[in-house]
C-alpha cells in the first residue's frame, strides 16, 4: 500500500528535480523546487515521520522558497535575463562528462545489483514523530541544539558587519 503511494510521488519528485535543472527560467526552476520539496514532505509522511513532514513544508517549501523568490524578484530580471545564460557548449567536455556519468551509473548499478543494498536498517515506529523529535532534541542532541545558537550569532554578526551602511564605527 505504501509502495503504491511512494512510487508515483518518487517519480514525480525525480521529474520535478530534473525540472529545476533543465528549466529555462529561474522562476520556473523555483516552482519546480517547491513541488519537489512538497513531494519529499509526502515521502516523509508515508514513513510516519509526520513532524518532519510538517517541518519540511514550513521550512523548505515555505520559508526558504520565499527567500528564493524574493531574491529572484529583487534581481529584477528583464527580457533576455529571464532565461539562464548557459556557457557555450564544448563538445569534447560534454562528451567526456557523458562518459563519466555513464561510468558512474554503471558502477553504481553493478554494486547495487549485487544485492548489497537489500538490508536497510528498519526505523522505529516512533521515528520522526513530534514526541520523538522533541525528546532526542533535548537529550541526545542537546549540545548541537545549543551550539546552533553560536552559529546563528556568528552569522548574524557577519551579516551586520558586511551590510551596515556606515563604514566606520
Amino acid at each position: 500500500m505504501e509502495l503504491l503511494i511512494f512510487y508515483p510521488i518518487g517519480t514525480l519528485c525525480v521529474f520535478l528535480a530534473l525540472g529545476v535543472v533543465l528549466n529555462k527560467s529561474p522562476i520556473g526552476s523555483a516552482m519546480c523546487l517547491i513541488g519537489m520539496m512538497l513531494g519529499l514532505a509526502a515521502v516523509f509522511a508515508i514513513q510516519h515521520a509526520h513532524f518532519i513532514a510538517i517541518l519540511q513544508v514550513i521550512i523548505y517549501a515555505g520559508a526558504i522558497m520565499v527567500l528564493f523568490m524574493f531574491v529572484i524578484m529583487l534581481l529584477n530580471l528583464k527580457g533576455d535575463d529571464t532565461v539562464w545564460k548557459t556557457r557555450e557548449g564544448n563538445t569534447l567536455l560534454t562528451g567526456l562528462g557523458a562518459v563519466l556519468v555513464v561510468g558512474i551509473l554503471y558502477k553504481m548499478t553493478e554494486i547495487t545489483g549485487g544485492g548489497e543494498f537489500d538490508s536497510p536498517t528498519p526505523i522505529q515506529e516512533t521515528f520522526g514523530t513530534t514526541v520523538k523529535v522533541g525528546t532526542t532534541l533535548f537529550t541526545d542532541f542537546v549540545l548541537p541544539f545549543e551550539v546552533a545558537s553560536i552559529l546563528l550569532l556568528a552569522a548574524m554578526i557577519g551579516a551586520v558587519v558586511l551590510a551596515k551602511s556606515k563604514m566606520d564605527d
Partner: protein
Amino acid sequence: MEHIPSPTVDLVSLAPVLVLSVFAMMVLLVDLYVKRDKTLVIFISLVGLLMTAISAFAKFDLPVHSFNDSYVVDELSVFFIMIFTLSSALAILLSIDYNKREGIRMGEYYSLILLCTVGMILLASSTDMIMIFLGIEIVSICLYVLAGIRRSDPKSNEAALKYFLLGAFATGFLLYGMTLVYGATGTTKLGLIAELIREEQIASKPLMLMGIVLLIIGFGFKVASVPFHMWAPDVYHGAPTPVTAFMAVGPKAAAFAAFFRVFAEAMPVLSPSWESLLCIVAVLSMFIGNVGAIMQTNIKRLLAYSSVSHVGYILIAVIAKNSLGSSSLVFYMLAYAFMIFGAFGIVILIGRKENEMLEIADYSGLAYKHPLMAISMSVFLLSLGGMPPLAGFVAKFYIFSAAIKEGFVTLVVLAVLNSVISFYYYLKVIVYMYMKEPEGEFQISLAPMTVFVVVIAMVGTAGLGIFPDPILYFTQH
C-alpha cells in the same frame, strides 16, 4: 505525560567553549562603549584566549566523553585547543597595527575571530557528525566575513564572495556525505560508527562508500587540498594579511582534527577503501601546490600555494592513522603556526599604507637595508621548506616516520621529492632579498606588536627545531 530522561550535561568538559563564547559576546558589548581606540577590546580578546587555554585543562583522567558521546576531551583536543588559542592570539596581535594602517576599525573583527576559535574548538573535540558539521559551519561563516571585512577593497570582496560560494557548495557535499553515512549506519556518533564497522554491521556498504567519498570532497575543500584548492590563492590574496595567516593555520588545523577523527579513528577498518583515494589527493596536493607556487610572483599567492602543498604532507599523517600519526599531526600544525605567522608578520611589516608591497620583486635588496628582517624571513621560508635544524624539518620528519612505520614508502619518497622542489621557490624569495639591488625605497615602520609576533614566531621556529623533545613528549602522552 511521558517522562523525558534528563540529558547528561557535563559543563566542565565544555569549559573552553563556554569561556570563549562569553568573552566573544563581552567583546561585542564592550565595543559599543569604546570609540576609535580598540585597545580595551583587544585586551579583552587576548585575556579571553588565555583563559580558554587555561580552562582546557579543567578535566583530569582523559579522555572524558560527555553529552552522550558527542563531545570528548582527550589529549588530542587539549593540544589542538592550545594551537587554536595560540594562533588566534598571534592573529589578533598581528591585526593591531595592520588594522590601524588599513583603517579596519570594526570591533566585531575581534569578536568574529573569537567565535571562529569557538568553532575550531568544537570541531576538534566533537565525536558526533552533527557537531562536526556545526563546528565547520561556525568556522566557515566567520572566515567568509573576515575575508571580506575590508568592504571598500574589491579584492577583499572578491575573496569573500568566492570563498562563500565555493564554501557553501562544499558544505553541501560534506553534509550529503554525512547523511549517507548516517543512512548506512543509523547513527551520527563516531564511536558507534566505529563499533558498527568493526562488527561488520553496516546496513549498506555502497552507501557507506559513497558517503566516504563525499566526506573526502567536503573536508578536502575545507583544508584546501588538490583538486579542491582553486579558492585558496584568490582568497589568501584578497583577505587582509592577518586573516590570511589566521586562515592558513587555525581553521585548517581544526579541519584536520575532524578529518583525523572521522577517518583515522572511526573508520580505520575501512581504510582499504579510502586510503588510496587520500594518497592520490595528498600526492596531487604536493605536486600541484609546489609547481603552482613556482609560477607565482605575489608573495601571498606563493604562500597560498605552498600551504596547499603542506596540506599534502599533513594528509600523510591522516593516512598513517597510528598514534604517531596523531602526535606528528599536532606537532606539524604547531610548527606550521609559528612559520606561517612569522612569514606573514614580515609581509605585514614590509607593507605600507598605500602599497602593501606584495610582489616578490618588492623584496629585492631587503638584506642590505634591513638585514634582521631578511634573516628572519629566510629562516621562516627555509623552515617551511624543511631545512634542518628548524621546526619544519622535525615536523616533516615525524610525519614521514609515522607513514614509513605503516609501510607507505612510495608516498614518503614522493613527499621528500616535493620538499626538494619546494626549496626552489622558497630560495627564490631569498635570492631576491640577498642578491638583487634594491629597486625602491623601503619605508618600514617597525610596529611594536607585529615585531613581537615575529619574535615569538622566531623563537618557536628555532626552538621547536632544536629542542623538539618537550613538545613531542607532551603530544605522545
